[in-house]
């Protein structure tokens, strides 16, 4: 019996469109980040944390430009958590390999985006806080999420293909995805030094425009990679089925 084409024209066109939008958007975003966004607006307007009364404010100067990579990567991690949850729930409901592949593709891209978030955050932290890492709640929860992505991939790699692997992947994807709201909520816990929000820190219109362009460039780029991984897994699955037949 002929198998359906796993890389349908529609999937390919969506992936291609996202990749084109992503690549152009990311390039424009990076150009704006280094050429358009100002170095500083006025002394004392860019705070690492809201200064206590009587304490002199700290200016970010050029260092904040890394946020234009850091933020979209963090948002992509959130998107990947959402896709992982969707893939897990839909697989349990429909038992179609597509949803299983979506869960694992989202975890793979989430792992890369999470690593980029942690890395850019650590570089900025070295400038701003004087250390690459501290056990601040936002950093810790992001690391936990990154470990959960890694655990899902490791878990899946250790299991033979079949129903059990699909169940475990789906269940783990569903269990791990609520960790992102925890990352979001983490800045409210304790006395963390992570800025509470980008807009709170940086209010200049040029910075807002650059942030939006970078975000809407980088996220489609990562989603395109999810699609490519998904199509690759679908092809592999079709080959496995064919070989078994």
């Amino acid at each position, binding site marked *: 019996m002929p198998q359906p084409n796993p890389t349908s024209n529609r999937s390919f066109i969506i992936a291609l469109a996202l990749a084109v939008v992503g690549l152009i958007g990311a390039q424009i975003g990076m150009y704006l980040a280094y050429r358009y966004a100002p170095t500083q607006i006025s002394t004392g307007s860019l705070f690492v944390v809201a200064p206590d009364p009587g304490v002199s404010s700290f200016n970010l100067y050029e260092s904040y430009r890394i946020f234009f990579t850091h933020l979209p990567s963090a948002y992509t991690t959130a998107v990947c958590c959402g896709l992982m949850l969707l893939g897990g729930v839909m697989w349990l409901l429909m038992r179609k390999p597509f949803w299983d592949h979506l869960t694992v593709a989202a975890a793979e891209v989430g792992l890369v985006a999470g690593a980029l978030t942690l890395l850019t955050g650590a570089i900025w932290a070295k400038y701003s806080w004087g250390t690459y890492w501290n056990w601040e709640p936002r950093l810790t929860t992001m690391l*936990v999420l990154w*470990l959960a992505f890694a655990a899902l991939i490791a*878990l899946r790699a*250790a*299991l033979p293909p079949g129903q059990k692997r699909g*169940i475990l992947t789906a269940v783990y994807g569903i269990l*791990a995805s609520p960790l992102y709201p925890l990352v979001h909520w983490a800045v409210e816990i304790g006395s963390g030094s992570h800025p509470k929000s980008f807009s709170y820190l940086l209010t200049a219109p040029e910075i807002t425009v650059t942030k939006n362009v970078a975000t809407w460039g980088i996220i489609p780029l990562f989603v395109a990679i999810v699609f490519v991984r998904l199509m690759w897994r679908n092809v592999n699955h079709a080959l496995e089925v064919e070989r078994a037949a």
Partner: protein
Amino acid sequence: MADTPATATPSSVRALALLLAREFRTEFRTRSLLASQGLFAATSVIALALGSRALPHNETFQRFALSAIWVCVLFAAVVGLNRSALAERERGLNTSFRLLPVDPAVLYTVRLCSALAFLIVTEVIIFALGALLLDVNALADPLIPAIILLADIGFLAPGVLLATATSEVRGGEALLAVALIPLTIPVLAGAIGAWDALGAGLGFAGAQPYVLLLGCCAAMFLALGLLLYGKLSE
């Protein structure tokens, strides 16, 4: 047509009580789970005390010891879950349980309650040894037992689910630790933070964000466990 007494489905509460009694009876006869879990916990705390015997028992040490003890609790929970899942697989109980005419959520609750009871017994050993060897006081604040209970649910709710799933694959014992530990780090952080705040005399107000974190994690994992357990047996 009404069910005859022979084929009647027991109510959820009665099924829960019967199955829970069976779990305790089996453990009372074999003592296999408590022996392995308890021995692991005791050995870990003794090794920790031995390794840190030269350190001064100041405030920094207390905080370190508290964190290390919680890590022992987490690993003891993993040992217990693995032991219990392995025993059930060896006896072929996974298949038998699936044939029972009860809601999978009841089976999940039975496994969770029995694991919780055994972990609490193990914690008595851990915290008693911790008080004796590391000066960690589990009774410093009346809220600490509630923190321990919430943390236990946070560890075991996803643990029972994942142990059941991994027990049926080769090398599942190692996979459980890989899968469970990243998920339960927020629970660990919440338990340590809450205990630290209570121990420092900050009261419930100081511990509130951590208690909230613990409560959210426990509730979320419990709800997901109840919803997803049935899917594992399909």
